[in-house]
């Protein structure tokens, strides 16, 4: 069960609120990143169990970050999030090494708990 979470999104407000929700379900937010490059370096440094990763980042594509992370040793689980829904990404969602995908509108304490476990 993933305990330690890294949140990656270029919106500070989203990171703050997602952090609050994760804490509500008992997860530890070990760090935050605003870009893809930052996400890679922070993940290597902090070694989280889970990366909550926005698809649209200012530099690297979230799919590229997910794919890179999943190919590394002791790869963290990656949960992709976006304000668009799965139909907007089609087959790109599969095969990038992510654990799953969730629209940001569906994020809640309950949905996260259901996905990550109590």
């Amino acid at each position, binding site marked *: 069960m993933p305990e330690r979470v890294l949140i990656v999104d270029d919106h500070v407000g989203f990171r703050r*609120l997602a952090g609050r929700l994760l804490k*509500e379900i008992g997860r530890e937010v070990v760090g935050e990143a605003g870009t893809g490059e930052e996400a890679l370096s922070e993940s290597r440094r902090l070694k989280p169990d889970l990366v909550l990763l926005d698809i649209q980042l200012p530099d690297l594509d979230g799919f590229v970050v997910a794919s890179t992370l999943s190919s590394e040793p002791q790869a963290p689980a990656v949960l992709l999030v976006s304000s668009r829904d799965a139909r907007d*990404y089609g087959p790109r969602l599969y095969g990038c090494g992510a654990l799953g995908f969730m629209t940001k509108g569906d994020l809640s304490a309950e949905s996260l708990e259901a996905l990550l476990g109590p």
Partner: protein
Amino acid sequence: MTKAQRRVIQAGALGIIALACFSEVKFRTLPGAIVPELSREWYLVLADLVPGSSFVLAGLIASSLRPRNRVGLLMIGVGVGLLTRNAVLQQRVGQMSVPAEVVLHFVSPLWAVLFLQLLLAFPGGQLVSRVDRAVVRSFYVVVPLAAILAVVVASYPLLGPMGQPVFDIKSPAGLIYFVCLVIGSGLVIRRWFVGGRARRRSMSPLLWPMVPITIFFVLSVAAVLGVLITPVPLVGLKNFLYSLATVFPLFLVALPVGFLVGLLRSGLDMSSVGDLVVKLSGGLAPERLQPALAEALHDPSLEVAYWLPAQEWFADLEGRRIEPPAGDSERAVSVLGDPSSPVAALVYDSALVHEGQLVDAAAAAVRLALENARLQVQLRAQLEEVRQSRARLVEAADSERQRVERDLHDGAQQQLVTLLLSMQVTKAEAMRHSDPETAMLVDANIATLRDALGELRELARGIHPTILTQAGLVPAIRSLTERCPIPVDVIGELGDVRLAPPLEAALYFVVSEAITNAVKHSKGRRMCVSLGRRSGLAIVEVSDDGVGGAELSLGSGLRGLTDRIAAVGGRLMVKSDHAGGTTIHAEVPCG
């Protein structure tokens, strides 16, 4: 050159022939001739006189047929040079005073330089290329000096006892002469290969006499080199060369005839202008104009470039912009009409450059047809411009749609998401503080907000589907069909290489509109989207098994799609009947 000057030259040339004949006959019949081993046989007399005389006579005919063309004069010059050379050969100069002998030796090899100039200037009469001009000018200095050097200083004659040239490369003068020959031959060969068909057509009559002459020269050089390399003289080759030297003058006789025939073939003759006029009177379509002119001028490489005054550039028949080349040694350009507002430009082989009058005659004959063709080209150019402008408009609209979708995503959607998450946090806190009433109230608001977010997402997707940019046309179409209430089969593929974004967008919106229409109006139970790529076209076909009745003229949706597909150079067809449902077929060129 004036007519009187031409007459003087013609009379002078004939006089030289007469003088040469008189001198030859007198010399041959003298008791105790200086070259007794040659005997006084008459065929040798003819062999000495005929090559030069035939060049002079052919030159006279050429200059009267083409008075503005210098080829005739050059031929006369070569002929006179050969006759002078003959005098040197017979060593009659030994009977002259020393200054006269030196002058004659200086002048006699000039026939070879004149001959090279003739070859390089043929059939136009002028040296067009800078290289040709520089080489010929330098030869006019180097070759006579080498001849003087050979005879006066080194006592190496340049001509053998039978009149054949001797390239004695053991002498410095002979070496210079040999190098000049190699350079000259190289230029002539290059001229043949880089020239267009018009030039080759006029030069081809020279080929037959030139082949044995060239073989003779090559073997002569081989014989000299053979002597140099091996101490044993190549007796067989020498004997062969001597026999070839006997008939050598006959090949020289064939040359002026070849020049004359080539000259007559070089330009546009009036009969071809007549043929052109006949063709025009029968009505000549613009696309047949260029081939007809090319045929009349015997230059298949001829091109017509039409001047478009509005655009201020030249265009081809399709209205596409072209840049006529600047005239050079290979291609010539004639601008027809007033230079400030030309009608067209003819680009042709520079072999025709000195046939300006004849080119003008042909151009005058087709002037009206050229004007008509230009109007058509202008219309095509305008249509092409409209097509490009329409394509640019569609592309700009697509970019704008993409920007709006992005703005919605980055702006309103993000704010709503933040608000939604904030409410989720509030709800979680209310639950933690055992306040179910607040939690329920917040939850109701979350549901409303989620609906609003969903609608906004649909709106953004309708404006521009992200999946089209992200994953390409096929996944975008599959995503469309997955949301369709009627089952849709997607068959076929469009290949691994993605289409250009404007093509993908155009085809995507065809499928999207066709599915929307089918859901709304067809009452069908099943649909099929068929994809394929063949003959440079990407093809998408959407069919349903509904009630039919769709028409391009009805409704703005299909009409708009037709315009959109046409803007990227494709076409859209609708087949709809009451029995067989509706099929919308779209194809776009994809290279």
